[in-house]
């Protein structure tokens, strides 16, 4: 174990020091670092996952492939990369509501959803959703009847869970792109439902 950062040295300075050493020793270059920050901040986001959901809603054969082998089906749309290697898709229905957590750290299907939001990494969510999922979901505005089976899934390095939410009523006439615009990150983590348009 290494020591904690020294008092008086802020983490920004420490990060800068680490980066300069990595660049100096040829272990990383600034351009690659910038590239990754840019990709995750601006390009990869929940819209990738939303496209997967919209396609599954409109294409029954794709839906079947997605449930059979999530990793392969999302790769069909070009979504792959670190933390996207073992995607398992769970279907939310009127009688079964799945919600995802990573109790150990913050495992999350980055290529589909981008970087995890702060609440997903927060200790309160990570412990409470396991113990009292209905209360946590209610706080998100997701009220579930007593007849609904609530299942909590713990993502890990082996499996990254991804939720296929219910398609909201009144969306029969929408195109795949219009449907994708409705799908929220929170619905694909399972803390919320997709709102009707």
């Amino acid at each position, binding site marked *: *174990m*290494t*020591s*904690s*950062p*020294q008092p008086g*040295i*802020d*983490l920004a*300075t*420490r*990060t*800068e*020091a*680490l*980066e*300069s*050493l*990595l660049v100096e020793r040829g*272990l*990383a*270059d*600034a351009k*690659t*670092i*910038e*590239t*990754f*920050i840019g*990709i*995750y*901040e*601006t*390009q*990869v*986001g*929940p*819209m*990738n996952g*939303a496209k997967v959901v919209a396609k599954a809603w409109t294409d029954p054969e794709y839906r079947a492939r997605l449930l059979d082998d999530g990793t392969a089906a999302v790769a069909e749309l*070009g*979504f*792959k*990369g*670190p*933390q996207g290697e073992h995607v398992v898709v769970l279907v939310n229905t009127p009688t079964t509501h799945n919600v995802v957590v990573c109790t*150990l750290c913050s495992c999350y299907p*980055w*290529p589909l959803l981008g*970087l995890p*939001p*702060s609440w997903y990494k927060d*200790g309160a969510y990570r412990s409470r959703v396991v113990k009292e999922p209905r209360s946590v979901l209610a706080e998100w505005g997701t009220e579930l009847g007593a007849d609904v089976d609530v299942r909590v899934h713990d993502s890990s*390095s082996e499996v990254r869970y991804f939720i296929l939410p219910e398609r909201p009523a009144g969306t029969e006439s929408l195109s795949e*792109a219009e449907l*994708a*615009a409705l799908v*929220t*990150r*929170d619905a694909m983590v399972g803390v919320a439902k997709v709102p009707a348009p």
Partner: protein
Amino acid sequence: MTAVVHELDVEGPAAPPRANGELVFDQPWQGRAFGLAMALTERGVVAYDAFRDHLIARIAAWEADPPGDEPYSYYAQWLQALEDVLAEQALIATADVVARAEAYAVRPAGHDHGHEHGHDHDHHH
């Protein structure tokens, strides 16, 4: 295990994740620390799983004995895990990081360190 994120087809009319979003990084250094880890794992300098093991250990250690005077910071754990895995693999000794950081910390205010990236990573709600 090659990262191919930059080959993703991510065009489309939907706006970037801000619509659903909140800040990805609270401060620019967090984005730098994130980018460092991704660049190192992408190039295979560090295995992602090895890094993740240290991240889990750091988070667990913090939660087991939270320092009273310090709020939890995910990216503080992230940065320390990155230092841990680099030290473990004898790539960068932690003492070297500390020495470099101490040298940077005493730079005069307003210095031009020609290294001022990160400021464009601020977001707005």
